[in-house]
């Protein structure tokens, strides 16, 4: 563009207006895309609710699956999901926090650390069904553990381990360096600094990551199918608590199980529309659980950010 053209005020004004128009157009496109995506999410939720809400009754939550769609329920599925999540949380959280703590606070800068880092980020990208194959070949057959709640919980724990590790590292990075230095300054050793100062102050961030990880595990279907978990379970695992001593037992770990997403998949794959209603109802419950967990995590993070700022 020639200098003389720019010199004319009218020409400059026209250029400014043109660029403002460009920005306005792109901004509108951005908002439109956002609305399309949000609209799709809303359509998905309302489609599920319209199809399935009528099926969500107390009986639906207290009945076993059945050949008759109208009598079928998700009792064994939601109890299975709860028990599997307990195993997943108990395994994934300590291991993930430990690994995150090591990588962020202890790890020397060397090839080994680098290899572990590449590895963790690669594990995060391994398809979930591959974890299912790992569990099938290793836990189920090589170790002979069978298709039990323990194996289901373990495979989901491995699956969400990278999520917990990454969240832990982010939470640790946000801890002010002064806290670490003053703890060392009063003579605490490395572990004492971690346990008494760093971990407590990173706790909300770690908790957020753990919840997000568990909400992903709750909806995972593929690895559980791959280990060959039965889809028709008309009984409950042995109760973890009992009225007589020793009050708690761990027999439930070795029980066959089904989970909510498997139950939903099973019902979606049937041709009858009545089962599709059941699938939609299961989907509403599943969606409700994951969205609640994520909402809680987002709320925690929001509160955390506010307290850090002030």
């Amino acid at each position, binding site marked *: 563009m020639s200098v003389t053209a720019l010199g004319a005020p009218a020409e400059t004004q026209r*250029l400014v207006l*043109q*660029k*403002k128009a*460009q*920005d306005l*157009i*792109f901004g509108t*496109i*951005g908002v439109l*895309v956002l609305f*399309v995506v949000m609209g*799709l*999410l809303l359509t*998905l939720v309302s*489609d*599920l609710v319209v199809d399935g809400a009528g099926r969500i009754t107390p009986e639906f939550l207290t009945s076993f699956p059945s050949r008759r769609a109208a009598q079928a329920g998700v009792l064994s599925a939601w109890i299975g999901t709860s028990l599997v999540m307990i195993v997943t949380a108990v395994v994934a959280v300590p291991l993930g926090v*430990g*690994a995150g*703590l*090591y*990588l962020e606070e*202890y790890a020397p800068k060397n090839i080994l650390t680098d290899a572990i880092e*590449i*590895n*963790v980020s*690669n*594990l995060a*990208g*391994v*398809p*979930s*069904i*591959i974890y*299912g*194959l*790992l569990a*099938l*070949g290793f836990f189920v057959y090589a170790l002979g553990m069978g298709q039990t709640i323990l194996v289901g919980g373990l495979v989901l724990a491995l699956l969400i*381990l990278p999520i917990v590790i990454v969240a832990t590292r982010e939470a640790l990075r946000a801890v002010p360096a002064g806290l670490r230095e003053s703890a060392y300054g009063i003579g605490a*050793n*490395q572990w*004492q600094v*971690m346990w008494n100062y760093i971990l407590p102050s990173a706790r909300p961030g770690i908790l957020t990551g753990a919840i997000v990880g568990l909400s992903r595990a709750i*909806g*995972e*279907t*593929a690895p559980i*199918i*791959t280990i*060959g978990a039965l889809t028709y379970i008309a009984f409950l695992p042995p109760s973890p608590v009992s009225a007589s001593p020793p009050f708690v037992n761990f027999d439930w770990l070795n029980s066959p199980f089904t989970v909510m*997403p498997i139950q*939903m*998949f099973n019902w*979606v794959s049937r041709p009858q529309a009545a089962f599709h209603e059941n699938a939609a109802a299961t*989907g509403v419950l599943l*969606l409700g659980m*994951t969205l609640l967990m994520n*909402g809680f995590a*987002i709320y925690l993070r929001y509160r955390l950010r506010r307290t850090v700022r002030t």
Partner: protein
Amino acid sequence: MTTTGSPLSEYEALRASPFLRRGRVLAAVMKVVLFACAALSVVITAAIVWVLVSESLPFFREIPLTTFLTDTEWTPVFTNARYGILPLLSATFWAAGIAMAVATPLGLVLAVYLSEFARPGVREALKPILEMLAAVPTVVFGYFALLFLTPLARQFIPGLSGFNLLIPGIVMGVMILPYVVSISEDAMRAVPMSLREGAFAVGMSRVQMAFSVIIPGAFSGVTAAYLLGFSRAVGETMVVAIAAGQNPNLTGDPREGAATITAYIVQMSLGDLPHGSLAYSTIFAAGLTLFVITLVFNLLGFFLRRKFREAY
């Protein structure tokens, strides 16, 4: 002066106290324990590779690799069984390709919008919505694709089967969108403010700045986002297992249904698979193929992503 009174020996005495020694021992033990936690991730990867290779070995002993990679039919449970992975691969890439065709333009627009256009308040309000989208279980997306979108789309697209690759592909594109947007936006926001100011100083509009400064500046990060997104789409299971059908079908028409690698593994896992049979080892051969493909894209994505972090 006696040596016992010197500050140094007092320090030595204090160090030797049982209380402090216990603390030191615990710290040393925990260091090892934490290292073990971190090293576990390497063990998991090794276990994945070992299981996939050792369980698919019986398959590759029976079927030559060239047959596996070039035969055009996959019928492992038929009487005249054929073992060509091509139909499964083609369906996998069709579905993932359609997903990318949806996620690439939408992801780019959203990432540019969030990083360059939206005010901080708006961005903070919008990010949770994207996270919610990412949190929806994949089996729910499968339901949506099969029972809502496909019947709807069949009214507009002639020849669309009840099971097809098109709709699950589109749904997967929306599904990987939050992931792609979050990585590309990270990369775009890592571009230094001075470059933006320079662009404005030479009279660029915000759009021009985004497309001629920010996107080139964040190129490796944005590319990484798409590579990682593609790897996700390739490994995605439930949407295609539910809505793309379970029939191996070497086709160039996405309106037809065809089983992907993941859908095949799901289908076989649902039936009775005797441990040690050839059918059992086919799912590991398919899994190994899938693992290798995703590994290549993940590693490429990882190094590109690291590059953009180092660049600024």
